[in-house]
């Protein structure tokens, strides 16, 4: 079927879903971007309304102010795939004049590969004002935007070089998916996830894995993204049939579960297979708990922490499993941010022309985080953590960080 994402974008099932719009405006009231800037006309306007005026071309360039956070689709009571329509229209619009910047920031693996060997230099460079000003001028990435923290060792490097765990593994094997960020930048999150899984008695298999293509997809580069996501499916399937795939990367999980199919029209058995087997780390733990199989002998952590459920996680329709698992830790007070979005939306908030918008979107969250704790905040996805940490000044980690500690592993 339609393997060319752009071709799909012109005539997708999403377009058929616009028939369900009753103009109720609920999406507009929940859109975090429209709430802070008139530059974006809002999801109803850009989605089901404007789509009727598109004949395979998008003349409404302001639709690029959509951050693709997906909140509109989540809140629509009629089932309109609003965010998907917008992503497709954007891809069509940008097809013939894709900015170099958007091509570059979609290349997450490339960034990781380039930065890891020279981590101290990269870190210094990304914190260097004059260098960032040049970056802003040349590739239009805002000088104050959060950047991934370069690491000296990749997760893969750590995983292969560490002493092989002896076992036994009474619960059998699971596949671990960490995503590019978890491989190159959020190495600690990946390590802690593996250690928690092994503590619980799982044999963790980590196949060599590439990028899910999400950053390319959200920048409208469907062709590259489709190639990458299918390659990743092959990678993950190589670890074994029917095994559960546990992921510590919330946004990449969303790409595998629904976005590659719904936005780019990827119809492929491999994607379906991986999409139904992959499960978010915290959802995995909650499932165990609900089955009475999660040890709850957590050490108390006397702390009050803000927790923010990222858009990409919410759009998977799994609720907020981290909240429920974290609340099993004695003395730990977890406060739900209640905020819609942190503003970053993958790569949106990095862009020079969107930076201020993204900061305004995230401001209620940053304020909430600062008012709740000066020590630590929790959030399931990588770029959101970078954004929250950079803008609130509060260290921000994956929820597994406290689970790991409460099990006495750190």
């Amino acid at each position: 079927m339609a393997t060319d994402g752009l071709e799909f974008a012109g005539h997708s099932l999403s377009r058929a879903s616009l028939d369900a719009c009753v103009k109720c405006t609920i999406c507009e009231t929940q859109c975090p971007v429209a709430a802070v800037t008139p530059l974006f006309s809002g999801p109803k306007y850009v989605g089901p309304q404007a789509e009727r005026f598109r004949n395979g071309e998008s003349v409404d360039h302001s639709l690029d102010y959509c951050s693709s956070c997906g909140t509109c689709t989540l809140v629509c009571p009629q089932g309109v795939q609003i965010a998907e329509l917008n992503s497709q229209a954007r891809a069509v619009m940008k097809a013939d004049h894709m900015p170099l910047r958007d091509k570059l920031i979609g290349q997450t693996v490339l960034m990781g590969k380039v930065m890891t060997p020279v981590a101290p230099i990269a870190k210094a460079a990304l914190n260097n004002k004059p260098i960032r000003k040049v970056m802003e001028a040349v590739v239009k990435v805002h000088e104050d935007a959060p950047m991934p923290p370069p690491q000296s060792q990749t997760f893969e490097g750590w995983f292969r070089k560490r002493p092989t765990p002896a076992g036994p593994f009474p619960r059998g094997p699971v596949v671990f998916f960490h995503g590019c960020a978890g491989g190159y930048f959020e190495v600690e999150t990946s390590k802690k996830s593996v250690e928690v899984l092994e503590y619980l008695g799982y044999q963790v298999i980590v196949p060599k894995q590439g990028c899910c293509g999400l950053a390319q997809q959200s920048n409208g580069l469907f062709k590259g993204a489709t190639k990458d996501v299918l390659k990743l499916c092959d990678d993950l399937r190589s670890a074994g049939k029917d095994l559960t795939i546990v992921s510590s990367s919330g946004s990449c999980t969303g790409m595998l579960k629904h976005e590659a199919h719904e936005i780019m029209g990827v119809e492929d058995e491999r994607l379906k297979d991986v999409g139904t087997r992959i499960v978010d780390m915290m959802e995995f733990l909650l499932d165990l708990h609900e089955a009475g199989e999660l040890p709850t002998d957590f050490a108390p952590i006397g702390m009050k922490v803000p927790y923010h459920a990222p858009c990409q996680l919410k759009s998977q329709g799994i609720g907020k499993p981290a909240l429920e698992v974290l609340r099993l830790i004695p003395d730990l007070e977890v406060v739900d941010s209640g905020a819609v979005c942190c503003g970053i939306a993958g790569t949106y908030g990095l862009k020079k022309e969107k930076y201020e918008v993204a900061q305004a979107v995230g401001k209620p969250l940053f304020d909430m985080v600062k008012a709740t704790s000066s020590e630590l905040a929790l959030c399931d996805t990588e770029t959101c953590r970078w954004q929250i940490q950079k803008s609130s000044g509060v260290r921000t980690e994956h929820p597994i960080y406290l689970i790991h500690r409460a099990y006495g592993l750190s």
Partner: protein
Amino acid sequence: MRKLAVDVVVIGGGSTGAGVVRDVAMRGYSTVLLERADLGQGTTGRFHGLLHSGGRYVVSDPLSATECAQENAILSRIQAGAVEMTGGYFVTGPDDDPSFADKFLAGAAATGVPAQEIPVAEALRNEPRLNRGIKRAIEVLDGTVDGWQLVWGAANSARHYGAQILTYHKVTKIDTVDGHVAAVHCTDLKNGEDVVIETGFVLNCAGPWAGQIAAMAGAHPVDVIPGRGIMVAMSHRLVNRVVNRCIYPADGDILVPVHTVSIIGTTDVKVDDPDNLAIEANEVQQMFDAGEVLVPGFRKARALHAWAGARPLIKDNRVAATDTRHMSRGMAVIDHTTRDGLDGMLTIGGGKLTTYRLMAEHIVDAMCEKLGEKRVCRTADEDMPVEGAGPNYVVTHRLHDREHDRLDDQIICECELMSRKMFTDALAEQPKGTFDDLRRQLRLGMGPCQGGFCSMRATGIALASEHIDIERATELLRLFLKNRWIGLWPILHGEQLRQTALDNWIFAGTLDIEHLPAAESEVVL
């Protein structure tokens, strides 16, 4: 009583009348057009929006085919802004006879209708929702046309040449003196005033109502047989080209993308009264079935609105009177001198929207001949003042316009992207217009919500503009919603039912529109 005197009175403000009054004015006659309602409110505003390539008629009616092909090229030039050059396909459905396509191609060659068979795969690539079981595909130059813009364009062009356009003027009587037309009486429906127009010539362009007009002048009955056709608009463009079944003309054989919707049509049933056109449930179902053949899943797509129009077919002895589809679509000019001993009147019937300019040329030529004058028709050579000057319409136009003024102006009709300024400008030009009059020019309330969100906004703005008072505002809103409802109830199912329920909560529940105070005296709409 108002008195006027003109060379020629044109009766009927549909496409034919508008084309005729333009032609008459361009040939230097003083003229007035009389229309009992708004321009394009009869047959012209109730067709599917197809600008024929001629393909539809290459087998059944070769003369019409050639005329359509020629006029298509002229209209898409002189009224570019009203025409979208979508292109069209004739496709052989899974159960259709594939050999008809051979007759079609031969007919097209013989009639001068550009047509080219293309690989089915190419058709499916360009129109991915098309039935994947189609067996053949022929590409033609079908386009789509906005009937109201077409009529207003011609009327404005006529005004430019000195013609008067009197809408909401109902003809009541035609005076004759010594077997010659002498005057036309009409009533201005907006204020009840009688108007008498002295004239030497009447051109009867009343379409399905032409028989009623001819009778007023004492002519023998003109057998116009109104052929009722229903159409259903679907909520978005399921196809971006006109898609025709490649079969002998039948019901529901055309799907037309016009503006933001796609329209499936049509049926053909002989009726007696063109003012009383039912939208029968079985015909609506027939349209959905026909749509399913062209675009699988059609029944699950959202239908927005259904309506019926009446074709103005002149009786032709070649076929049975009950089979109006196979009567000649060719135009016929009736000369009342030879037929009724009545000088100074011609009636025109038949034809189709695509050939409206040519029909006008024929009847005005006939008039000049009777008057013994040689005045040349120039309507094909001159672009219309407004829409003729620019490029052809494309569906992205309004989205493009709103992209540029969205930060400075409000959007009142969200479905059809009508801005506040578009509305207030049109209202200032037509302060006595109903919201349906404005709708025909602006597409107010013609999108998925069918007026649910925009009509009360429009009412408030109209009231604030001080063109109307509170009693008229209430009645205008009620009338608008009532008229929308006529087209809604026949298709109430699926997604549109949800919308209608929500709209009903808004109007009946929140606004309690049924119980708004009644006007103290009658409001003339």
